[in-house]
């Protein structure tokens, strides 16, 4: 490491990460086991239908969990993520045969060069419709 002042090369609006995650019912079962969230609306069509849902839904926390991964890879160290929040605005229906694809775009929403921090705004979409609102990650810039 040099003693030079680090000049970050980022600007508000820059896309810093992007990824697409094809998920299937298998992904939901895997997440259920890993997280301990065994709510049946995430794996049983009959239960989902009985409570008026359009189909089996992905766990909101699965969407939240994967949406931050491109940012984790970009900053390079989990300790650089200091705050992460989302609103669950639209359910992600996972088709039994075709699954669903969650696309994630991460842009710099706010920059504090002096503190070396940024707010990264995530856009998570399925079939072009956003599924998360106010999805923001506070990071220490890499």
């Amino acid at each position, binding site marked *: 490491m040099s003693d030079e002042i680090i000049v970050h090369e980022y600007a508000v609006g820059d896309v810093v990460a992007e990824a697409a*995650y094809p998920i299937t019912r298998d*992904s939901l079962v*895997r*997440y259920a*086991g*890993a*997280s*301990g*969230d065994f*709510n049946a609306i995430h794996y049983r069509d009959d239960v989902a239908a009985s*409570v008026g849902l359009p189909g089996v839904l992905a766990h*909101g*926390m*699965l969407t*939240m*969990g*994967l949406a*931050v*991964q491109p940012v*984790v*890879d970009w900053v390079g*160290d*989990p*300790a650089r*993520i*200091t*705050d*992460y*929040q*989302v*609103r*669950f605005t639209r359910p992600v229906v996972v088709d039994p045969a075709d699954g669903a694809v969650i696309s994630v775009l991460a842009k710099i929403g706010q920059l504090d060069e002096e503190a070396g921090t940024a707010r990264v705004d995530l856009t998570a979409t399925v079939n072009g419709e956003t599924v998360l609102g*106010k999805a923001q990650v506070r990071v220490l810039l890499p």
Partner: protein
Amino acid sequence: MNPDLVGRVFAPTKPYLVGREKVREFARAVFASDPKNVDVEAAAAAGYPDVVAPPTFAIVVQELTLAQLLAQDDAGIELTHVVHGEQRFDYSRPIVAGDELTAQLNVTSVKTLGGNAMVTAESVVTDAAGEHVVTAVSVLVVRGDA
């Protein structure tokens, strides 16, 4: 939905021991690709004592407090009517395998909107030394169409 839940004192959860294989399992489930989530050597090279949990892993510990909330006889919350509205994690440091974590629940607000209720549940997660690790905040929407 019972507004008296605000300010109620809940007992801290029993210590949750973060297992290495649990972290790996969770990391795979959220499509994590950072080797520090699964590889002890990669984690050690970055200065961590063991594999590092993905950012949303804290939900596993927070879940123990949400179970406490649902178990309150007078809460009036039925799981099938609960929708996850918002979630936030405010970290002091990442969770690593070997951590022994305790969570303390605080219901910070109960709002009624139409027939629905919105409950804000804040769980403060600390390690065995009593140091703050993460504060996890859930907003649960309890549908009133029961």
